[in-house]
C-alpha cells in the first residue's frame, strides 16, 4: 500500500513537471506562434545546471534559480535567431540547436560525465509538494500573462508580424521576452526533473521528448492553459498507463515500448486531423461594448 502511495505521489510530481514544461511550450507556440521544436533543450539545460550545481555543493534551491536563469539566457539567445524567419524554418533551427546542446552534454566528459549522466544526490523535504505547488503557481502566472496586455500583444504577433509592427510594437523584444519566460519556466521544469529522478543523462534530452510535449499541448488545445494541463495529464496517463500492459497481456516489452511511442504519433495525427483546436479550444475573449 505504501509502495502504491509512493508511486502515486511520484506520478503526480512527474505529471506536474511535464505540465510546467508543456505550459512553457504553450506560451511560445500557442501564445507567440514560435514553433519551438527544441523545447527539450530548456529541460536539459535546467536539469544539468541543477545537477552540476548540487554536485558542487550549491544549495538546491539556489540551483533551481540558477537553472531558470541559464535556460532563460538560452531562450533569449534562441529568440535572437528568430528575426523574420518563418515558422517552418525556425522549427528546424530550434530542433538543430537542441540537438547541439544534447551532443555537447553527451561528448564533453569533463562537463557532465558524458553518456553516464550525473546523479543528483540530495533529498529535499516535501519535494513532491513543492513541484505540485510550483505547477499551480506557473498555471496562475500563465493565466495572468494570458490576460495581460503582454499576452494580447504576443497573440497578435502569433497572427503575423505586420499588425504589431504597424502599431509600433517591438516584435523582436516581445519574442525575446516570451522566450525568456518560456525558458525560465522550462528550466524550472528541468531542475525539478533532475531532483525528482535524482539523475540526468543526455538520453533524457532526445528530440522525442520535445514531440511528446508537443503531443500534450496539441491534444489539450494550444492557447488554452487549462487545456494544456488536461492534455498533459491525458498523454501522461496514456503513456505511463500502457507501460503496465505487460502485466495484463503477454507482449514483448521492447515491442510494447515501441508501440507506446507510436501511439503518441498516432494521437498527434488524429487530433490534428479531426480536432485541430484540441480538447479545450482557445477561448476568444470578446469585449462587449
Amino acid at each position, binding site marked *: 500500500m505504501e509502495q502504491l502511495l509512493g508511486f502515486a505521489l511520484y506520478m503526480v510530481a512527474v505529471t506536474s513537471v511535464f505540465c510546467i514544461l508543456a505550459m512553457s511550450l504553450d506560451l511560445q507556440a500557442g501564445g507567440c506562434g514560435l*514553433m519551438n521544436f527544441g523545447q527539450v533543450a530548456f529541460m536539459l539545460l535546467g536539469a544539468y545546471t541543477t545537477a552540476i550545481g548540487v554536485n558542487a555543493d550549491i544549495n538546491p534551491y539556489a540551483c533551481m534559480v540558477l537553472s531558470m536563469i541559464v535556460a532563460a539566457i538560452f531562450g533569449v539567445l534562441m529568440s535572437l*535567431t528568430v*528575426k*523574420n*524567419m*518563418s*515558422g*517552418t*524554418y*525556425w*522549427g*528546424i*533551427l530550434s*530542433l*538543430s*540547436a537542441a*540537438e*547541439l546542446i544534447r*551532443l555537447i552534454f*553527451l*561528448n564533453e566528459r569533463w562537463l557532465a560525465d558524458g553518456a553516464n549522466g550525473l546523479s543528483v544526490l540530495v533529498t529535499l523535504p516535501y519535494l513532491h509538494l513543492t513541484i505540485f505547488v510550483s505547477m499551480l503557481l506557473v498555471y496562475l502566472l500563465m493565466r495572468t500573462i494570458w490576460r495581460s496586455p503582454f499576452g494580447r500583444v504576443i497573440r497578435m504577433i502569433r497572427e503575423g508580424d505586420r499588425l504589431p509592427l504597424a502599431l509600433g510594437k517591438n516584435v523582436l523584444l516581445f519574442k525575446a521576452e516570451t522566450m525568456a519566460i518560456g525558458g525560465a519556466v522550462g528550466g524550472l521544469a528541468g531542475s525539478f526533473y533532475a531532483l525528482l529522478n535524482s539523475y540526468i543523462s543526455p538520453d533524457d534530452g532526445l*528530440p*522525442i521528448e520535445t*514531440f511528446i510535449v*508537443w*503531443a500534450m499541448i*496539441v491534444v489539450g488545445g494550444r492557447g488554452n492553459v487549462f487545456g494544456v494541463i488536461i492534455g498533459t495529464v491525458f498523454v501522461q496517463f496514456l503513456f505511463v498507463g500502457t507501460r503496465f500492459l505487460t502485466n495484463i497481456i503477454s507482449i514483448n516489452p*521492447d*515491442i510494447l515500448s*515501441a*508501440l*507506446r*511511442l*507510436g*501511439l*503518441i*504519433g*498516432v*494521437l*498527434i*495525427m488524429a487530433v*490534428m*486531423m479531426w480536432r*485541430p483546436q484540441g480538447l479545450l479550444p482557445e477561448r476568444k475573449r470578446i469585449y462587449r461594448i
Partner: protein
Amino acid sequence: MNLIQVIINSLITSAELGLIAIGLSMTFAILRFANFAHVEAAVMGAYLGFLFNVVFGWNLFLSALFAVALMGGVGCLFHRYIFKRVAGTGDVTPMIVSLGLAIAIRSGLQAIWGPQHKIYDYEILPGKMVFGAFITFPQIGILITAVAAMLGFYALLQFSRIGKAMRATSANVELAQACSIDTEKVILFVWFLGTAFAALGGFMIAWDTQLDPYLGFNLVIPIFCAVLIGGVGSIQGAIIGALIVGFAQNFGLAVNFAPLIGLFGLIDVPADISLPGAYKPAITYLAVVLLLLIRPTGITRKEL
C-alpha cells in the same frame, strides 16, 4: 586517412543524402510544408527492401525496384488519407501531422523488426582501389544509381509534360489551375515520386551500412540542411546542398585544425587538433543554425 578516400566517402554520403533531399525539396516546394515523415519513409523503404530481399529471398535489384515502387504508392496513400485532410490550413498543421506520422512510422518499424541491425543479402564482390582509396562494391552501385536517378529526375522535370506541370504548380498553384493543370493529380504524382526517391535513398544507405529503426533519426537534420542550402524546390540546389553536407561531414572530421587554431605557428597548440568523431552530426546542426541565421527566410528568399 588520405585525401582521395575522404573525397570518395564524401561523394557517397552526398549521393545517399541527395536522393532523399531531392524528393523532400520537391514536396516542400509543392505542398508548402516541412514533411518530417519524408525521412522516415526512406527508412520504411529500406525495410521493405529487406522484407523482399531477405525474408522473401528475392534478388537485391528486384527487391529495391519493388520497394521503391511500393513506397511511391504508400506516399500517395499518405496524401489521400492524411495530408489531404489538413491541406489549406497553413504550414504549421501539416508539419505537426508529419511529425506524428514520423513518430508512428519509426515506432511501427521498431515494433515489427526490433532494434537489431540488419543487412541485406547479396553476393559480395571485391571492392576496388581507386587512386589509393578503397571503394566497396555497394558504394560503386550507389554512386551509379544515384547519378542515374538524379539525371532521370532532372530530365523528367525539365522535358516531360508532368514535369512542366510540377514546376508550374510549385511556382503558383492558382495560375497552374487557371491553365487547366490538374494540380491534385500533380500533387499525387509529387507524393509518389518524392516518396519513391526517399525509399531509394534509404535503401542505398542501408545497403552501404546497415539497417536499423534509428536510421532516420540521424538523417532528418542533414537532409533538411541539404534542402535549405540548395533552396526549396530546386533539384540542382538539393544536389549541391547534399554535396556540401556530405563533404562538410567527412572533411570536418578529417581536417586537422591545429594550424588554424594556433594561427599558423603564432600560438603554441598541440600538433593534432581534430574534431572528435562523436561530433559528426554536430557539423550539420551547426551548419543549419548558421545558414538560417545568415539567410533567415532560406537561401532562395522564398516566402513559405
